[in-house]
């Protein structure tokens, strides 16, 4: 693929960067990314990836736009209320960058979006609002060896975890949050959330995705992404990072499970600490 004149202008701020450049932009244009959930996280994620020229985006969300969404879900307008989010998002994103190809699923994420036998995605982004969907994505991405970028928010707090399953199979989301924990009592619907906290977390998901996609191009490092839990506290504007350790009895990536993808991401404890 070569960039045409318009693409040169549109992506000029990428092309100016030594570690993106023409080769990196071509990589992005050939990339396939699945965005699961088009709420407060999925909106900024989809906007930034579309703007960046991530060439093939698949969007998945079962819901219609509701008036209560507009406080934070920045893809939608008042006129969209009652319409499927995927349809409204598609109109807005196509207007932003018509060279991106989109697939949409107005459904809860499942086998039809991410089949057991294999799926053609370079990165999956978890922008869902419940643990059941998050754990389903974790299992499937782990199985398929697809990197998973998972974020969440509530109130003034945000959280981000990136699992680079293409380069290392452990740890996984279930090492940090047990699969059988059920849903917490507090959610955005009953406890509220600050819109820009979702914007911060969604922007970070988009950054993590671009980094994952660009790994190995232009001599960029191809090391596995470090498995960290990052917490953002919007009331103090502070970040805290925690190392996620592989749990030996983890039902998804634990010792009884066959090792299928690459090596252990787990690093020496002392090395990890220094990098935190």
């Amino acid at each position, binding site marked *: 693929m070569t960039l045409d004149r318009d693409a040169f202008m549109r992506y000029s701020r990428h092309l100016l960067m030594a570690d993106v450049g023409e080769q990196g932009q071509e990589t992005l244009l050939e990339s396939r990314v699945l965005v699961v*959930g088009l*709420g*407060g*996280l*999925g909106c900024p994620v989809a906007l930034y990836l579309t703007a960046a020229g991530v060439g093939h985006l698949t969007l998945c969300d079962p819901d219609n736009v509701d008036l209560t969404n507009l406080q934070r879900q920045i893809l939608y307008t008042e006129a969209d209320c009652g319409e499927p989010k995927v349809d409204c998002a598609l109109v807005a994103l196509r207007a932003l960058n018509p060279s991106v190809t989109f697939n949409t699923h107005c459904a809860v994420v499942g086998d039809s979006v991410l089949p057991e036998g294999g799926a053609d995605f370079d990165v999956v982004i*978890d*922008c*869902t*609002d*419940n*643990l059941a969907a*998050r754990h389903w994505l974790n299992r499937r991405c782990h199985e398929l060896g697809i990197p998973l970028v998972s*974020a*969440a*928010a*509530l*109130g*003034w*707090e*945000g*959280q981000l975890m990136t699992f680079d399953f293409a380069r290392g199979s452990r740890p996984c989301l279930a*090492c*940090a*949050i*047990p699969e*059988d*924990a*059920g*849903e*917490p*009592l*507090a*959610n*955005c619907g009953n406890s509220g*959330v600050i819109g820009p906290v*979702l914007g911060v977390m969604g922007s970070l998901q988009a950054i993590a995705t671009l980094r994952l996609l660009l790994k190995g191009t232009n001599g960029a490092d191809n090391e596995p992404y470090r498995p960290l*839990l990052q*917490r953002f*506290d919007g009331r103090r504007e502070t970040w*805290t*990072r*925690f*190392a*996620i*350790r592989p*749990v030996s009895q983890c039902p998804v990536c634990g010792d009884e499970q066959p090792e299928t993808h690459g090596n252990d991401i787990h690093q020496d*404890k002392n090395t990890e*600490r220094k990098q*935190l």
Partner: protein
Amino acid sequence: MIKVLFFGRLGDIAGAEERKVSVPEQVRTVDDLRQLLGEDGEALAKALNEPQVMVAVNQDLVEWDHVFEDEDEVAFLPPVTGG
């Protein structure tokens, strides 16, 4: 003495983000510590015992049977799952 950190909503419930705690000898694991802290009040006990709460020692996520040491920093993180 250990340093206990309550993140986000847990800090609101505990009335402090940070607390220095001297722990009796029989309190060894982070789960023991959670039960000890929960003696302060029903609301904190309930919030700390939600099954999705995470716990970290010196910025490493650990399991609930992890044995902490003197001078450790133990952080409790309330669940955040919205999107």
